[in-house]
C-alpha cells in the first residue's frame, strides 16, 4: 500500500484553520481535515476518496483538552481513557477502540467523524474495479451499491465509532466551527442521512469539541460492544445505556444509544422512555433488548451476519442495562 502524495496545511489556530479551508474552497481545491489520521490515512492508502490537500489540526491548541464537561476534538483517545475527570462511560467506550497504539494517535473528533465502513468499500482500487466499483468512493464510474444492488441512492456503509453512543447517552452537545461561524447541536443530531453524507458538517466546517451537561456527572452507564476480537476490531454493534440518579438517589432519567448497526449511530430515547420503573429490572432489560432488536437494521457488509448482529442488539442492550444497574448499586 502506498499513501498518495498530498499537500499538508498546518494552521496554528482555529481561525487560521477555517480560513485555510475557505481559501482552499475558493480555489476549488478538495481537502480533508486530519487529526490522528488513523482512519483517514488507511483510506487514502486504499484509494478511498483521497484528496490533494489535507489540513492538519495537530497545532491547533484551542481544540485540545480533556475535562469533565468539555472534551476537545483533538483530545487523544488514550488521554480520554486515562483521564480522571472524564465520565467513566466515555472512558469505557474509548478504551474499547482498536488498540493502545491507535488510541494514542486517534482523537475524539476523528472517532466521531469516523468514515463509514463496508466490505465492498474498504478494499484496494484493483479490488473495487473487480466489482465495477463502489458508489461511495468511486464517483464517475456509475457504480451501484454492492450491498443492496439496483439502487444508486442510499449508502448503507456502517458507522462503527465507539464514542458516539456513550456521548449521546450523556446528553453531549457537539460544537462546530467554520468560516461562516459557529454552531452547536445535540450529538444525535450531528449524524445525518446515509453512509456517504454521514453528518451535518459542511465543507470547511470542523468539530471543535463536545460539551457535556452538568447533569452527566450524576449519570451511571455501561457500554457493551460486540466484536470478534477484543482488540483492533470495530464494533459489529455497540449499545450504551445510562441512568440519571437524582440527589435523593432515585433514577430520574434514562438514555440508550447504539452504534455499528447502521450508517449512523442512533439514540433510543423513545425506547427507554417506555421502561416501567416499577417492574423487575432484569425483565425490563430483556424486554427492552427485544425492542431494540426490532429497531436496528444491520446489513451484510461487516464481519458478522446481520441476523446475528440484530439478535445481539438485544443481548447488548440487556447487558448494558444490567451492568448499569450493578454500577448504580455499587455507587
Amino acid at each position: 500500500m502506498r499513501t498518495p502524495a498530498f499537500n499538508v496545511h498546518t494552521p496554528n489556530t482555529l481561525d487560521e484553520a477555517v480560513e485555510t479551508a475557505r481559501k482552499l474552497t475558493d480555489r476549488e481545491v478538495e481537502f480533508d481535515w486530519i487529526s490522528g489520521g488513523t482512519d483517514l490515512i488507511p483510506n487514502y492508502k486504499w484509494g478511498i476518496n483521497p484528496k490533494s490537500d489535507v489540513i492538519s489540526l495537530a497545532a491547533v491548541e484551542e481544540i485540545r483538552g480533556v475535562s469533565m464537561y468539555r472534551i476537545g476534538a483533538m483530545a487523544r483517545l488514550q488521554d480520554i481513557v486515562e483521564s480522571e475527570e472524564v465520565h467513566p462511560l466515555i472512558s469505557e467506550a474509548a478504551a474499547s477502540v482498536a488498540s493502545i497504539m491507535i488510541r494514542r494517535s486517534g482523537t475524539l473528533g476523528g472517532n466521531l467523524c469516523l468514515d463509514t465502513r463496508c466490505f465492498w468499500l474498504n478494499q484496494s482500487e484493483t479490488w473495487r474495479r473487480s466489482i465495477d466499483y463502489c458508489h461511495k468512493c468511486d464517483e464517475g464510474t456509475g457504480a451501484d451499491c454492492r450491498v443492496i444492488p439496483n439502487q444508486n441512492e442510499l449508502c448503507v456503509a456502517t458507522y462503527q465509532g465507539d464514542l458516539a453512543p456513550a456521548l449521546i447517552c450523556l446528553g453531549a452537545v457537539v460544537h462546530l466551527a467554520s468560516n461562516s461561524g459557529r454552531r452547536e447541536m445535540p450529538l444525535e443530531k450531528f449524524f445525518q442521512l446515509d453512509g456517504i453524507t454521514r453528518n451535518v458538517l459542511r465543507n470547511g466546517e470542523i468539530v471543535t469539541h463536545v460539551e457535556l451537561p452538568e447533569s452527566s456527572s450524576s449519570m451511571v452507564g455501561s457500554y457493551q460492544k460486540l466484536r470478534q476480537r477484543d482488540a483492533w476490531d470495530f464494533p459489529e454493534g455497540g449499545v450504551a445505556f445510562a441512568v440519571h440518579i437524582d440527589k435523593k438517589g432515585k433514577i430520574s432519567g434514562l438514555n440508550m444509544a447504539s452504534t455499528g448497526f447502521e450508517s449512523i449511530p442512533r439514540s433510543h430515547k423513545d425506547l427507554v422512555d417506555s421502561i416501567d420503573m416499577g417492574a423487575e429490572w432484569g425483565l425490563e432489560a430483556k424486554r427492552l433488548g427485544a425492542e431494540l432488536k426490532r429497531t436496528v437494521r444491520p446489513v451484510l457488509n461487516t464481519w458478522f451476519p446481520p441476523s446475528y448482529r440484530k439478535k445481539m442488539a438485544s443481548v447488548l442492550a440487556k447487558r448494558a442495562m444490567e451492568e448499569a444497574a450493578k454500577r448504580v448499586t455499587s455507587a
Partner: protein
Amino acid sequence: MASDKKEMVGYRQQPGKLDFTRPGSGGSSSISRERESDTIPESQGGDLPQPWGPHRHDDLITGRVIGKPTPLIDSKWKVTGQALYGDDIRLPGEIIGRLVRTDRHYARVLSIDASEAESLPGVLGIATGEDAPHAFGVLPVTKDEHAMAVEKVRHIGDIVACVAAEDEDTARLAANSIRIEYEDLEPIFDIKDGLKDSENPIHDRGRYHIGESNVQKRVFQRFGRVQNIEDSIASHESSWTFKGVNHGFTEPHAVVAHWDPRGRLTLYTPQQVPHYVHRALADVLEIPMHQINVYRTFVGGGFGGKSDPFPHEMCAAILARKTGRPVRITFDREEVFWTNRGRHPSKITMAIHADDEGRLSGIETDALIDGGGFASFGHVTTYYNGVLHTAPYEIGAFHYTGARVWTNKPASGAMRGHGAVNSRCAVEVGIDDISEKLGVDPIDLRLANLLPPHSATITGFRITSMGMRECLERVRAESGWDEKFRNMPLGKGIGVGCGFFISGSGLPIHWDPNKFPHATVHLKIDMDGGVTIHTGAADIGQGSDTVVAQAVAEVLGLPMDMIRIRSRESDTSPVDLGSYSSRVTFMNANAAVSAAMQIRSELISAASEITGVDEKRILIGDRRVYSKDDPSNGVSYLEALHKAQEDRGALLASGSYRTPPMGKMHKGAAAGLAPAYSFSAYVAEVDVDVETGKIKVEKVWAAHDCGKALNPLSVEGQIIGSCHMGLGQVISEEMRYGRTGNLLNPDLLGYKIPTVHEMPEVVPIIVESNDPEGPFGAKEAGEGPLLPILPAVCNAVYDAIGVRIQELPMTPDKIYRAVESTCRKGGFESPLDLPSPRLVLTSLSKTLKERGAQHSIRDKMRRLESEIGDYHNGALFGNDPETPPEELDPDWHVQVLPDEEYLEEPGLAGSAWLHTERRHRGEVE
C-alpha cells in the same frame, strides 16, 4: 599450551607465531569446563536417565548444548533490527517492479496494451506472459503456473504483466495504465461445482485430464476388514465445512533480482525452499542452474506459505534481465492473500465406528478440498487429508476418498500441519462423540487403542518411537481432567485432542531417495578453530540454523560462539530440500552429526597421536580431547585440530542423510511416509458465552512428543506458536468470499488472527520418546503441535454447552445459531437454561481401562527391548501382529481404485471417480 613448546628455528624463517585465541581453548570462555555428568547419558556412564533406552548418538554427547535452552543464533540480528528481510535488500541502481493483477475471476486474455505505460517517464521495462512461456510448479507432476498469464487468468489477483520503473509511484501508475482486453469465462467458486464437467476447465491436463471436470487429483484407498465396520455397535458421522485459512506471516513476499556483470542471476528472496525456486528459475528463464544463485534472506515467517516457487520471483528476474538493473518487488498484504497457498477450504465427511470391545473398527473419510486456481502442493495435500489420520490409533478398517478441485480463487497449498489439520479435527471430534455414545472417558478410549512403538499403520507407515501414551497421561494429570470433564457448569468446558505428524517426507520430490540424500551438510574448520557450516536448509525463524549449529557444537565439544553458519546462498550451500514437511531437524541435523563425526574422529586420532592414548579411550569434552581414564592426559581442541591440519590445512567434512527403505508398494504408499512421526495430545479449557456464542479459550495443556528436545526453548516456542495459529482457525480465521466470489477480507483487520486477548495460557509439556533414527533422538516439533488444538477446543465447547458444530471457524454467530436451535429443540426459553453434558460410564469403561493398562506395559517393553517382533495394525482385531494382515487374511483390503459397487453410491469427493481420464476414453492419442 602450544606456545610453551620449544620452537624449531633455522629450518625456515619462522614468522611470529600467532595464537589463534586464548590458550588452550577457543571460544568466549578461556577455561575448559568439566563434563557435567547429568548431561551425559546413562549408557555412557553419565547420570542422564534414559527411560526410553540408549541411542546411537549417545557416545557423541559432550554435554555442551543439546537439550539445553539455547537462544536462536540469529535472534540478536532480529531484536536489534539488523536482520535483512526480503524488502531490506538494497542494491546500487535498484528499480521497483510492480505486478499487474487482473480484476477478473476467470477470463481469456485477448490483448495487452502497454503503450501508455511505456510512454510514462521513468518506466524502464514491461513484461507479459509472452516473455516466459514455460510452466513451473512446486511439484514436477503438476507444473501449471506461469510467471504471468499465458492464456487465461484464473482468479482475481492473478498476474497478467509486470512493469519496472525508477520508483514505486511510477511503477504503480504504469501498472494501472496497462489496458487488458479479456473474454470472460464462467467462473466457479463452489467447491462442489469443481466436480462437474465444465466447458472451460480451469486447467487442461491433456490426456490425464479427469473427465472434463475441474478435478485436479483424486484418491481412493480402502484398507482393512470391512466386516469390522459392520460389527460396530456405535458410529459417529458428521459433515464438516472448513474455511480456507492463510498463514498470516508478518513479512509480505518480497524479492530482489540482480544479474551481475558476468551474466549470472542472484535472486534474493525470503524462501522456505530455495532449491525449488532455483530449478523453476532455470526452467522459466531458460538458463542452466549453475548460472543462478538463490540467496535466502531472513524469512519473516513462512509456515508453508513461502515454499512454492512464485510468479513474482520469476517476474523480478525477467524485469531485471530486460532492464539490466536490480529489480525489487514487495507485496501489499492483499497480494499475499491473492498468492495464498494457505490451508484448503474443505468439505469432509467423517464416519468412525467402534465395536463392543471399544475398538475403533473403522474410519471412513471423504474429503473434498478446494485448490483454488493452481495445483501447488495439492497432489500431496489430497493424500494427506486421508493418510495422516491412520495413526496413532489401531483401526480395523480405513476407507478414504479424497479429491482436490480447481476453482477461480487464490491457490491453496501447504500450511503448517499440511493436509492433516482438518481431517484430524474431524477424527478427534468423532472419537469424542463416539466415547460419549459408548459411555466411556475419551482419554480412556484413546489409551486403549494406541498403536505400540515400532509398529506399522494400516497403510504401512513405519512408526518407530511413539510417545502418544505419555502425552495423554501427562495432560490428563496436569489439567485435572478427571475432576473437570463433564463436570463443570454451563459455559465451562474441557476437551482433549490428539495428533501425529510426519517428521520429514520420506520421498524427496525431485529425485530417487535411493540415489541422492535428502540433506547434505559441509563443515570447514581452519586454523582459527571456528567451524563453518554450509547447509542449504532454510532458517525461516524456526531455528534450523541453531539446531544444526547445536548438533555440530555438541559432537565437537565446542561452545556455540565457535560455530558459524553459511546457509543463505545456493552458490555455497549443498542442495537441501528446504524447510517443509517438518524435515529439517530430523534430516539436516542428522547430516550435520554425520559430518561432525568425521571431524571428531580426526580430532581423536590427532589427540591419540600426541598423547599416545588409544583412540577408543579418548573423550571429547569442552574444547578438550583427553583420556577417559586420566582426564589430565589430553590436549586442547586447538592442539588436536592443528595436529590434524598438519600437511593439509583446513579440515573439511561432508555429511548427509537419507531415509531408510520403508513403506508398502501400493499407489500412493509414499504419501505420508516419514522416517519418524511426532505425537501430541492437548487438553483445552474454554469459557463459552452462551448468550453471544463467543468462545474464550482459557488454558491449554499441550504435550508434544518431539523425540528429544534438542533446544527446549524452541520446542516450547513451537508449541505455543502452534496453539496460536491453530486457535485462529478454530475460533476466527477464515478467508471469506462474498456472493460475487470476491475475497472480502484480504487484510489483517478483516482476517481475524487472534490477539493477545484471545490467546490462552499454554502449558507446554515436552515428551521425549528418543527416536532411534532422529539426531540424538529428536523428531519434529514445528507442525504436529498445531493439530490437537482444533479438536481440543471443539470438544471443550461441547463439554461447555452441549453443542457441536461442524464448521470452522466457530465464530460466535455460528455457535449462537447452534445454541438457538438446541434451545428450540429442547424447549428451553433461554440459552442460560441449557443443561451441561454429563457422562454416565458404562461397563465398557472398565474394559478400556484394563486394556489401556496392559498396553502400557506392552509399549514399555517394546520401546526398551532390542529384540522385538513386528507389530502390524490389525493385531488388536485378532490378526497375527508379525505378518502384514493382507498376507493372511483374504478379507483384508489393500485397494487403491474404486470398484463398481462403490461407484454406485460414491461419497462427495469419491464422486470424482465417476469421471474417466481422457486417455482412457480413446478421444486423444
